[in-house]
């Protein structure tokens, strides 16, 4: 089960995810998020992973796809509050190089 909660504030679209991200569950979130990006044109998409309890490579696909779409619209992506248990996968994916991943407790305050 994966739940998502969307909020838009000052051009920042925050998606709070909770539960397990796999190929099955990623689909709805992907569709809902992309619809909101197209409608609201946020300058930043913030994926909050604090309550994500499991993720496989489908989660990497989800992040990379949103990174691309935000780039197309001239905005950027931040993946925040990544739990310790998911770090191994994030590192393996090479997503670190995109500089969009922030660990749990690593609050980089946005201006």
């Amino acid at each position, binding site marked *: 089960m994966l739940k998502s909660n969307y909020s838009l504030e000052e051009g920042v679209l925050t998606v709070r995810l909770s539960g397990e991200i796999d*190929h099955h*569950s990623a689909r709805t979130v992907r569709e809902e998020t992309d619809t909101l990006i197209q409608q609201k044109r946020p300058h930043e998409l913030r994926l909050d992973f604090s309550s994500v309890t*499991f993720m496989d490579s489908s989660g*990497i696909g989800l992040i*990379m*796809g949103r990174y691309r779409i935000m780039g197309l619209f001239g905005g950027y992506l931040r993946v925040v509050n990544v739990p310790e248990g998911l770090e*191994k996968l994030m590192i*393996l*994916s090479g997503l670190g190089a995109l500089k969009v991943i922030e660990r749990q407790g690593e609050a980089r305050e946005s201006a």
Partner: protein
Amino acid sequence: MKALNEMELTFESRSTNESFARSAVAAFIVQLDPTIGELNDIRTAVSEAVTNCIVHAYKDEIGIISVNVRIMPENSVIIRIRDKGCGIEDIQQAMEPLFTTAHGDERAGLGFAVMQSFTDKLTVRSKPGKGTTVTLKKTLSRRLSDG
């Protein structure tokens, strides 16, 4: 080597079964008293293998997936995930990190790389038109409680 305990699951290649399969395997392996990290590694690797059967092997159809788990001596576990789907033409190429045949689908091409690094041994056997068998082996750390 003879297994100390064994179980097998067969289920249809529906994406709702991805979470069922990894949870069932994890529940079976709890008897080895794995660490949270080890259990998560196994759940992730199983999720990759089962998702590949659903997404690639049985791309436009529903087929049968079987998952066999054997608890072996010396605290190790062997998990075999099998489909009778389309098979893989070039296994070596398929296993290369970032290689994917499903570009439009947001696949990262990382499934095999994840299986490889989250377990101790990954073996892939496949025949085009016949299906694919993925075998994962992992040895768990011995913990103090010698249950």
